[in-house]
């Protein structure tokens, strides 16, 4: 966490020395992003804090932890493929879930399918590329997401 602050401050200083106007513009962009996500963000945190009350940690680790890996894996991959959730909401949510004991494997398969597979964006995609290509691209993306999640799981030592 401290490193994160350190890197930000160092980069900000370098930018400031090189070009004051650009740095101000960067800060303005940062502010704009921040304001834009403020409300959905607050809303998300509220929903999570209520859900965490009803869903105890033990349940989370039971279904998304190391025990029932396969069931959790398949269901989160499908969930990630279907729902539309902006990354600005998804990553903080995943950050919270990891701290609650959800495995990185599950997080990986969820975020990757979320980003790469778009069941709900199928109509738009097929407008541009046709049905067949859209289906193949989404299937390939799904496979890629699974491979990435397995690799993540192996590196974090969660699979065996």
């Amino acid at each position, binding site marked *: 966490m401290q490193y994160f602050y350190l890197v930000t401050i160092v980069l900000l200083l370098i930018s400031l020395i090189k070009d004051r106007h650009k740095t101000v513009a*960067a800060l303005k*962009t940062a502010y704009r992003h921040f304001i834009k996500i403020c409300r959905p*963000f607050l809303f998300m945190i509220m929903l999570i804090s209520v859900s965490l009350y009803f869903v105890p940690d033990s349940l989370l680790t039971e279904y998304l932890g190391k025990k029932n890996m396969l069931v959790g894996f398949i269901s989160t991959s499908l969930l990630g493929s279907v729902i539309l959730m902006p990354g600005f909401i998804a990553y903080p949510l995943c950050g919270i879930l990891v701290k609650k004991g959800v495995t990185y494997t599950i997080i990986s398969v969820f*975020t990757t399918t979320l980003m790469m597979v778009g069941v709900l964006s199928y109509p738009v995609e097929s407008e*541009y590329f046709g049905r067949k290509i859209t289906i*193949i691209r989404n299937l390939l993306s799904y496979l890629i997401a699974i491979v*990435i999640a397995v690799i993540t799981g192996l590196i974090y030592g969660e699979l065996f």
Partner: protein
Amino acid sequence: MQVAGIVLFVLFIIISLSIGYKPGLEIYTNFISLLTKMIKILPCAFILIGLFEVWIKKQTVQNNFSGIRGYFFAILLSSSTMGGLYVAFPVAYSLCKKGVKMEFVFTYLFASAVFRIPMTIYEASFLGLKFTSIRLLATLPLIILASIFMGKYLDKNPHFGIQISRENRQ
């Protein structure tokens, strides 16, 4: 709906605090601890994203798509894309129309889902550098393989190409 939800939540918390309603208090503690954690991360994440957007200009690399370099440029182009696949579809389509080979178009499309730098910064701030680097390194060969596969497939079945696309249908 969000606003209504927020108002309702605040009311619920205020009432719980004043009458000492146990579940309400617990939810309140959850909320505060999550909020403080998030608030610590968010400013840094957005400042880094802001710096990236200002210093790295949109790449004008569309004419450089050939050979190994094509993949490189496709990924470079995608890394500065803002927004998800919705933004990438029209860009990929226009690459198609400019005669860029399909493998590179797909590399761009795949990469713009997972290689966008602002999103990657954001991801790393919440899930850690280790997680993000594993994901990036694992994705790179996979999406290149997938795009080669799709390029080959389209060469063999050209009628699946962009003929069925928006303009031709209208």
